[in-house]
């Protein structure tokens, strides 16, 4: 997974034959194509596959590896159609090049929305199939046999009649000269040997088990400087003045410079940079800074949701006449849910290596949104985005944080580097910088008023959501329509429960926020799943109907087939309805996001007042599971992540200052709290959908629902465990 290896000129000439752009095979070398090719690592088999004389197959991944395992799935798509030997397949990160590596739909190079496999499904299978056809053609010519008689298996081409066989490597030069097929033939699913099997292993497992995987934090080069920045303790604060005398006396400190986001201590090693910052004295100007507490913000959002503070509501689902729908208080249920700011808290705190050049810059880091970062840095330096070279490294987690639209930490690295004349600078955030640095999942208040019919099912649903907009001011602003940011309401909007309700009045308000906010793994679903799934259990509880049966009735009405299928599968595997020991209860929840529907059934008890989750049964419908073991891993990880924030997640702000900036104050799930997770994947022929995020938001409501069964008390605020 090291940097890019430029292909030598002589070999490059030899290999000219075909170029695969955007999944479409383009034959020949027209001048326009040559221009594109010059900007990329031109290879005969297109920008996604490189095959070397030693038989090794390298898949170029335009999607970053953040832990979600997508790169192994991407490699499997190529390897399947190429009939490659999986043990000879490796993955390399693509260069930042929007012309070659943009994703469909977004038009930019970015990893997110659980869309890596979906986006690459056709593109990479075609890339593999085209390369395979080129090798078959080359072998047929060399052996003087019909191409149709040649088979490829496990990286070996063979001809039964003549007994001839060869690996890819020996035929590379000849295959590169073959004109690729205009429309490469793809295998039927029945012929898959790799896709859908546990043979798709994590290609990075060894490097990540031996300490040899190279993360941003591990980048070292001669002359490199380390920068640690003193940031304003309050969001929106700026440097008034600073005294760096003591900082400059720390052995190893090279310089202290003011940058727009604070004061940077630059040193020859990390310890000196941190010690230097500790010695720095900075006076902050808080005139424009946020000075409220998270509690005050929560109170304000509640007041807004309840109409005691007037706001301009933006409707996103309105059907029927709500005017008289809630007239019978005996048949109306009020539901509230406050959910706090959440920190992504990836294991590797944010960091970035930057080298500012005469023209442009080179960034080396766990990049998640190459195009956004290139654009921000280009605007900063006044160069063309293509002058911002990015070497993408594996990220030590992200959960969304690394695709921040403002490129806050990337920009910070460049701001320091441009003051360090031609020397590479590694910007290092400590844990405290990372968790205190903002860009949280926004604090959110949901309020619903639900009227029910004689059988206890919703007849009218009023819903209010107060949450800061994620997309305002980002390149994705177009998702805000008529005042509604779809990423703040998704999951309420489109909910099968609302579909099954005749009268609906759902509205949102997105307050301005000085506390920076952004998406976190599963985005809107992080709070909407909790609200909707816990609301349904409260309604079922009130109607004295079993929560699984209650959902079934609503899914049938809404024609939510995927919901029904995963609910039934999970219920059956979890033994729903069977007796459980005293003091334990099961809770169920189902949610759809990123094209996948997930059901969780959790077994929960209260131990010393804290919820204890011992087992979670998961059923998922994610279309074709390309790498089933990775889907399972993402369900396991998603549940741990979701359970962690449901139980403990809460960025506490007092007087504008984040109080819990490290794992001592910001509790996260540990091994002793980890439930056993059992995953069942629904067989499917549908195009693969997301797996990285959909596992996250379902566990929270499943636990809250189990607690409701156990105690009879609904949850109205998270986290469940108060610190």
């Amino acid at each position: 997974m090291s940097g890019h290896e430029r292909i030598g000129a002589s070999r490059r000439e030899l290999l000219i034959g075909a170029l695969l752009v955007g999944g479409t095979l383009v034959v020949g070398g027209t001048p326009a194509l040559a221009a594109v090719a010059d900007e990329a690592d031109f290879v005969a088999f297109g920008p996604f596959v490189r095959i070397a004389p030693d038989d090794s197959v390298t898949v170029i991944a335009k999607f970053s590896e953040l832990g979600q395992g997508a790169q192994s799935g991407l490699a499997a798509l190529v390897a399947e159609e190429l009939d490659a030997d999986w043990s000879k397949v490796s993955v390399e990160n693509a260069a930042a090049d929007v012309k070659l590596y943009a994703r469909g739909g977004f038009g930019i190079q970015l990893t997110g929305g659980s869309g890596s496999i979906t986006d690459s499904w056709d593109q990479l299978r075609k890339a593999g199939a085209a390369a395979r056809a080129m090798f078959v053609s080359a072998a047929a010519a060399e052996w003087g046999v019909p191409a149709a008689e040649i088979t490829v298996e496990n990286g070996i081409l063979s001809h039964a009649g003549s007994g001839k066989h060869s690996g890819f490597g020996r035929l590379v030069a000849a295959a590169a000269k073959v004109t690729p097929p205009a429309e490469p033939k793809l295998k039927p699913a029945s012929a898959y040997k790799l896709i859908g099997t546990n043979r798709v292993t994590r290609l990075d497992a060894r490097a990540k088990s031996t300490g040899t995987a190279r993360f941003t934090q591990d980048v070292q080069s001669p002359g490199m400087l380390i920068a640690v920045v003193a940031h304003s303790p309050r969001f929106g604060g700026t440097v008034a003045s600073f005294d760096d005398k003591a900082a400059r006396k720390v052995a190893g400190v090279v310089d202290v410079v003011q940058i727009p986001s604070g004061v940077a201590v630059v040193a020859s090693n990390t310890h000196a940079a941190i010690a230097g910052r500790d010695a720095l004295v900075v006076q902050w100007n808080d005139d424009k800074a946020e000075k409220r507490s998270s509690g005050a913000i929560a109170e304000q959002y509640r007041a807004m949701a309840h109409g005691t503070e007037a706001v301009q509501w933006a409707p996103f689902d309105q059907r029927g006449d709500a005017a008289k729908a809630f007239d019978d208080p005996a048949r109306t249920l009020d539901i509230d849910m406050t959910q706090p700011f959440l920190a992504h808290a990836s294991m590797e705190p944010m960091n970035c290596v930057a080298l500012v050049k005469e023209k442009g810059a080179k960034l080396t880091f766990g990049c998640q949104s190459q195009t956004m970062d290139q654009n921000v840095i280009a605007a900063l330096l006044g160069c063309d985005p293509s002058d911002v070279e990015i070497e993408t490294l594996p990220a030590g987690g992200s959960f969304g944080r690394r695709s921040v639209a403002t490129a806050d930490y990337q920009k910070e690295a460049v701001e320091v580097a441009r003051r360090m004349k031609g020397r590479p600078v590694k910007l290092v955030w400590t844990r405290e910088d990372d968790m205190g640095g903002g860009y949280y999942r926004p604090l959110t208040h949901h309020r619903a008023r639900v009227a029910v019919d004689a059988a206890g099912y919703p007849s009218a649903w009023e819903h209010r959501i107060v949450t800061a907009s994620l997309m305002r001011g980002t390149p994705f602003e177009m998702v805000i329509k008529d005042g509604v940011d779809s990423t703040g309401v998704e999951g309420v909007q489109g909910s099968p429960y609302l579909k099954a309700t005749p009268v609906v009045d759902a509205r949102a308000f997105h307050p301005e926020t000085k506390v920076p906010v952004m998406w976190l793994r599963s985005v809107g679903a992080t709070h909407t799943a909790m609200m909707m799934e816990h609301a349904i259990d409260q309604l079922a509880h009130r109607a004295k109907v079993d929560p699984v049966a209650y959902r079934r009735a609503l899914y049938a009405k809404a024609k939510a087939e995927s919901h029904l299928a995963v609910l039934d599968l999970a219920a059956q595997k979890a033994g729903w309805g069977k007796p459980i020991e005293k003091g334990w209860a099961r809770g169920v929840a189902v949610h759809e996001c990123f094209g996948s529907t997930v059901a969780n059934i959790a077994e929960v008890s209260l131990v010393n007042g804290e919820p204890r989750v011992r087992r979670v049964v998961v059923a998922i419908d994610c279309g074709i599971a390309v790498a089933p073991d990775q889907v399972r891993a993402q369900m396991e990880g998603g549940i741990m992540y979701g359970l962690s924030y449901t139980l403990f997640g809460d960025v506490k702000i007092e007087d504008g200052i984040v109080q819990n900036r490290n794992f001592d104050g910001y509790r996260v799930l540990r091994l002793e709290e980890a439930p056993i997770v059992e995953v069942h994947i629904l067989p499917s022929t549908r195009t693969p959908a997301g797996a990285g995020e959909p596992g996250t938001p379902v566990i929270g409501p499943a636990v809250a629902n189990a607690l409701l069964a156990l105690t009879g008390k609904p949850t109205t605020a998270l986290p469940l465990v108060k610190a």
Partner: protein
Amino acid sequence: MTKLNINGKDREISAAADTPLLWVLRDEMGLTGTKFGCGIAQCGACTVHADGEAIRSCVTTVEMAQGMRITTIEGLEAKHPLQAAWERHNVPQCGYCQSGQIMSAAALLATKPKPNDAEIVEAMNGNICRCGCYNRIVAAIKDAAGVAA
């Protein structure tokens, strides 16, 4: 100059006595397998062995480490059975915590070759995995130790 014994070799260290071992290993020795996660002994990403015992190198100073045999992930016996098990179970996700996880697990197995569930929890609870690989970490430890899952 201070002398430290790292991965079986005596090394001259130029860092000051109060420097955390973590930064000496990473920045001075180039042994970057040991990770920085929290700096306050909360996450376990920086776990190394001192005389065979799992310690947090972020809160262990050069001075404290003197006279001890320090082992990092790079110095773990070649192809440690835990690493093979980690691969078999596809344990890592982002991978950033995994050096620390393996070093904690290796210290456990060195003293308790057949650990029970409670012993695994006790040895591993200080190692946070934000990707949530906990089920697989336990499964891989049991596999490597040859105890029933």
